């Protein structure tokens, strides 16, 4: 196992270097020059020269790449040209939003998708199966942004004045502030957001739980429901379909028949013997979906007015904020590589027949 992990990590190095190279050159390829987009059209050549000097933009490209590599390895992702703040600081601010959103979306997808898949497989070819599969097919075909807009219309406007109303935008009701847990606990954390406590405090729901602000927690969760539904529908449909086909295959196997013959009750047969073995491909799918969640996050965050990673990436790509583009794509791509690694390892752990050599 350790050997396998080491080899996978070694193999990841060229990919990571490639990612660094791509992010670096993509940022350089973006048309338009960062000086004018940061300082406005009227920046004089002198001001631009000073600007380029400050951000190291007047070095030759290979030198820039070398400096960039050195800084990345030191954990310094540079300063945002537009915001004038360290990229890492922005990350502490934005990443929690997307993580929270992804967590809720995945929870939604798994909690709804797997039971739907089980029902669909168990009552194979019944009306419930047909309806579920039609639903799942429609689910993967829906544009995320459209679903988000329609959900915010249905729950935010059409169901207004009913108990089903949900806030259509934002992370918290305007004016509500949840006290950061480190303040509530009297921890001595300096004001900068550059810290792990700051990161955790930015995950609203978790922070609300930590400070036991129940109203705040309910409010934060309420704001997360619609974005999570919009973002989670595609993974949910994929998970439901995967669970169904995988469970169908397993339920036809001999050991399931044996279990039935032994007199194990149906729930035990389906869940203990069937589902446990059928979940393997589902785990892979969940891992792969985490990747596509980032694409959906750009759209979901746009529709629901959340300032997360997707949103800042879009803004900085179109606003030519080189360092932010580099920093965030790098972190996302690295997360991707490691999620894939974790999924592969988990796969072996769940299925003892697979040996990782």
């Amino acid at each position: 196992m350790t050997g396998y992990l080491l080899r996978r990590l070694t193999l990841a190095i060229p990919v990571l270097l490639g990612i660094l190279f791509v992010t670096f050159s993509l940022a350089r390829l973006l048309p338009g020059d960062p000086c004018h987009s940061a300082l406005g059209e009227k920046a004089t050549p002198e001001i631009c020269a000073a600007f380029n000097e400050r951000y190291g933009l007047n070095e030759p490209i290979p030198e820039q790449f070398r400096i960039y590599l050195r800084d990345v390895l030191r954990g310094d992702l540079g300063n945002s040209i537009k915001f004038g703040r360290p990229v890492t600081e922005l990350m502490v601010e934005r990443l929690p939003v997307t993580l929270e959103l992804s967590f809720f979306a995945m929870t939604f997808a798994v909690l709804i998708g797997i039971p739907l898949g089980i029902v669909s497989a168990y009552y194979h070819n019944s009306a419930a199966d047909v309806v579920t599969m039609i639903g799942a097919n429609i689910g993967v075909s829906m544009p995320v942004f459209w679903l988000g807009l329609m959900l915010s219309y249905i729950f935010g406007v059409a169901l207004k004045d009913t108990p089903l109303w949900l806030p259509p935008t934002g992370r918290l009701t305007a004016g509500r502030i949840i006290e950061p847990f480190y303040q509530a606990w009297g921890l001595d954390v300096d004001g900068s957001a550059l810290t792990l406590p700051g990161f955790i405090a930015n995950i609203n729901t978790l922070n609300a739980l930590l400070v036991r602000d129940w109203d705040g927690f309910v409010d934060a969760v309420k704001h997360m429901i619609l974005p999570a539904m919009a973002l989670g529908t595609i993974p949910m449909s994929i998970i439901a379909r995967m669970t169904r086909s995988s469970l169908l295959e397993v339920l036809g196997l001999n050991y399931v028949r044996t279990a039935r013959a032994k007199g194990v009750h149906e729930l035990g047969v389906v869940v203990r013997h069937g589902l446990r073995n059928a979940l393997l491909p589902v785990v892979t799918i969940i891992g792969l979906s985490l990747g596509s969640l980032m694409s959906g996050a750009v759209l979901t965050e746009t529709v629901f007015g959340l300032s997360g990673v997707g949103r800042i990436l879009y803004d900085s790509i179109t606003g030519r904020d080189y360092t932010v583009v580099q920093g965030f794509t790098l972190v996302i791509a690295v997360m991707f590589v490691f999620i894939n690694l974790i999924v592969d390892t988990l796969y072996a752990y769940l299925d003892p027949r697979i040996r990782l050599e």
Partner: protein
Amino acid sequence: MHSTEPASSNLDLAAADVAIITKPPKSLWRETIERLLRKPSALVGLGLLGFLVTIAIFAPFIATHDPLAVLLDVPEEGVAKRDAPCIHLLGCPGAGDVLVKGVPGEPVAAAALSSTNSLMAAAHGKTISVWNASNGKLLMSLEHDGPVTALDWSPNDQKILAASGEELYIWDINRRALSRTLEHEGGASLVRWNADGTRFLSADEHTVRLWDTLAWTLVAAIESPDPLLAVQWNQNGTLVLTASGSEAKLWNAFVGTEVATLAHDVPLTSASFNRSTNRILTTSGDKLYIWNASTFQRELTIDHVGTLANGTWSEAISRGIQNVMASDGDTAYVWRVTTGEQVLALEHGEPIVQMGGSPLATRIFTRSEHTVKVWDAKSGDRVLTIERDAPILQVTWQSSGGGVFVATSDEISVVKTSDYQYLMGIDGNLRDQFSRVVFGARLSLIVGLTTVTLAVIIGTISGAVAGYVGGWVDNVIMRIMDVMLAFPPLILAIAVVTVLGPGLINALLAISVVFIPAYARVARSGVLAVKEEDFVTADRVLGVSHARILFRRIMPNALAPLIVQATLGIGTAILDAAALSFLGLGAQPPTPEWGAMLGAERNQVFTAPHLVFYPGIAIMITVLAFNLLGDGLRDALDPRLDR
């Protein structure tokens, strides 16, 4: 493939000797298609696809409008931004249908529709009732001490000005309360706000009083020896036009001094400003005069046989139309101002008492005591006849031009004058959404097919070469693909589009680039699977060229998964293209692309959800069609999965 087991030559059918005759296996393709056609979901997918392709091909015949045309022109006046859709089967109001009605239960003395068409008010007895002009709900009743003789809405719909007894009442509609009372000695029979709501006038038979609404003071009083027959503001509220006897006069609205007199030989029958108040129309005897409103010179005289009255304008300067009209007994005549030639003669059939041109001058109404007729202002055809039992007090055009407000002595109503209906409503740029959705099918199908074709070609070649050649070539190509796969697809596409510049073609290229690794992987594994087969080795021994072996021998055997992947990929490509357009990086306005349509109206989702709903549904159906077809193909090509 051999088709029959050769039967032995000394076959004796009488003997128990058995000849094994296998049915000739069908070709793989035929078998696949037959299996595909047995799957209901694939059939649905094929059906949807056929439907979409038909729509895309026949789009010009299916669409009711030009997808880029702004629908404000003849004869579609009355179109409003983000109009709700109207589905015929569910009953759409047509021309002549009463859209909304208010019945006060007492004789109506005066009535008015607010300038945004959202409220309407009627004065009856001592009360003014206000209705919501979209659903006909009675909103409020404003009570007065005496009978109300005149009323008018302020231009922003916030206030009602009413005359009752010797008082003028100003009601605040938001607070539903009286905000002020002013005194008009002798009682006013007419009240009018100016166009920006900073002034208003009140008039009785001989006096016009001008009021300031900032200080709420009387500015001036204009006396007229003869009874007034017309009182009108100019556009910016600096001049007041009065007509009495044989003179039309213009007054300074700030101090009440006379500015000019337009003298006529015969007593006047009507006088009115045009909408931009640069001209004045007067009728007197058998003549119609057009005056310049700044030099006060006569510009045009139109001679007519018969007595003219009710002179008014039918103009839309933006469309280059400036006509005047006047009635002579039962007939209305329309003249072109630029040339003075008579354009139309509209036979109303009864004595005409009022006429009006629609805001864009596409329609004209004429009114007699019990009948309103609406005419096409270009052809002179009669569009509509509205009959009322009770005498009609007043008719005005809705400011949108889609209907007329008719006040009779027992009810007030808004009657639709146009028959045009929009299946999916009107977008924020006044275009027909249905036509745009129909034309969008073309773009989406083209985008889906071209992106995937491009990605398949590049991906397959690079993947096949990697798999076939192996070694460092394989390593380099597949590591590049790994790097590309490490980026979230949409983020990579956004980055590529930003490098190339926004636009449909660039979005298309960006999506192709993002999809290449998927096909490269599939092609490579397909090649690896058959690379070591005997027939490949045989070819190699025979000295067949590498390219021929790869593309003629190996690839056809690795094609099946590629086809499945490509079909499913079209759906994803359409979704991603729509997402890019939604973000403003793909198709640029005014291209009728579904994602772009959705993106343009996304901020209006709370007020006009239909503008978001229909393009989204269209995207969903298209993607669904390809997904169902792809799933069906996968099952058909791999019978093991068929269940």
